[in-house]
């Protein structure tokens, strides 16, 4: 079955990982495409792989969201070896007893759905690494 990543910066395959556009001058990293670097203003980027493990630096447990968004879910900010990544914390009960600041997490893939052509969209999240 064909698969498509939820976002351009998710690379699927045997070893799913995230990539970023890194400024070749100052090293600032961006998940979206930028016209120029927001940090230094230069315009040359290269693609780099983001570490697949990290530390949960912040989170919230969303109980009330826009229509169609399944709740509750855990939204988090993960420090992946110096690069901050936004993602849901998955495969863990969504409560503050199980999700804690500073916990170690690792990247995992999450199914999003399948379209009429049978193509499966795949997203990502972070799960406890212990």
């Amino acid at each position, binding site marked *: 079955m064909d698969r*498509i*990543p*939820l*976002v*351009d*910066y998710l690379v699927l395959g045997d070893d799913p990982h995230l990539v970023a556009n890194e400024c070749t001058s100052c090293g*600032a990293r*961006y*998940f*979206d*495409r930028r016209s120029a670097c*927001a*940090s230094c203003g230069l315009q040359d980027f290269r693609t780099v792989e983001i570490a697949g493990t990290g530390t949960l*630096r*912040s*989170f*919230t*447990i*969303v*109980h*009330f*969201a*826009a*229509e*169609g*968004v*399944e*709740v509750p*879910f855990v*939204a*988090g*900010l993960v420090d992946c070896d*110096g*690069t*901050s*990544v*936004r*993602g*849901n914390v998955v495969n863990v009960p969504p409560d*503050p007893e199980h999700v804690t*600041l*500073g916990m170690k997490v690792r990247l995992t893939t*999450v199914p*999003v*759905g399948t*379209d*009429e*052509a049978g*193509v499966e*969209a795949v*997203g*990502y999240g972070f799960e406890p690494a212990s």
Partner: protein
Amino acid sequence: MAENVWILGIHMTNFGKHRDKDILDLGSEAAIGALQDAGVGIKDIGVLGAGNLMGRGGFGQLLQKQIGQTGIPVYNVTNACATGATALRVAIMAVKAGETDMGLAVGVEKLAGAGLLSGNVRAAEGGHWVRDGRYGAVAPLDGRVGTETMPGVFAQIGMEYGHRYGGADFELFAGISEKNHAHSTLNPKAAYQKRFTLDEIMNDMMIAYPNTRPMCSANCDGAAAAVVVSEAKLRTLSLEQQRRAVKISASVLTSDPYQEACQVLPDVNTLTRQAAATAYEQAGIGPEDLDLVELHDCFATAELVHYDNLSLCEPGGAVDFFKSGAPWRDGRTPVNVSGGLQSKGHPISATGIANIWEIATHLRGEAGERQIADAKVGMAHVIGLGSACGVHVLEKSAL
């Protein structure tokens, strides 16, 4: 050095539900109230800064049809939750630049019943995946890659502070909300004037942990307006006008400079720190000189980080600052004695002028039951995500 600018008149409508009033009614009420408070008329005004975020645009000219079409320049501005402060700064800058000696700024919003802000409604899925936007997303990302809701974003901002410095737990954040709701009982203009116990706050509906419903700013209707005047012009006015005028000792607007994590979680800290540092320098005062502060508590989790960002405490000391009782109205540095956005309400574009009204009212000694005794210097802070931060320092007239 450009000359000083003063607030000559200022007015805030009651915040809450105004079912029978539209943005023009509310904006007019605020503008006419500010002119009356200033003791001047619309023909004395040389510039209009007009703020409204959720309307159809062109608010300033529509307002003129209600209060006087005098042909003066109108600047319609939007800057997220800092829209009101931005409109005010337009008027201040025009006066400072010498283009006119008197300006008017108005901010208004109709927001009662608006519900949750941000977060996209997710359409029914089907058809074929199509990559869209600068992330090439094939489906909406809200809820799939973190959260885009305001309560969730600001929850993470507070939790990150907790991760960095420790001590910021659910109960602490709820305590901040307890303080602001307690303060609101003395403010007849607040949308909600009800005191809540800590238990009531913690056991209310969870919106985005750790923010429960009473820990979120209240969507409501409201407007605020201010008349600003040059110091030279002020000295030609009556002694009573001079006595009630409030000096704008600092007026600062910043945007968010690049920080490593700002692409995944808005950084509300750096631009606030920079705005505060510039404001203290402009005013020639330090945080210890502040008799009261109105800061942007759009969520209880946000108030905590701004204690630190505005240097009301030592770096990293916001938790201890709160626990010491300092930001309560009888504490060392009273914060949000109006009740803050959690109870006073947050009609977005009015907020950045309404917080100035609160400070000015205390400096004039006209705050009634909630008056902070002998208030001489105050600070008003507002932040709009995206981001924009406005900080004003106000001083009581020496007369």
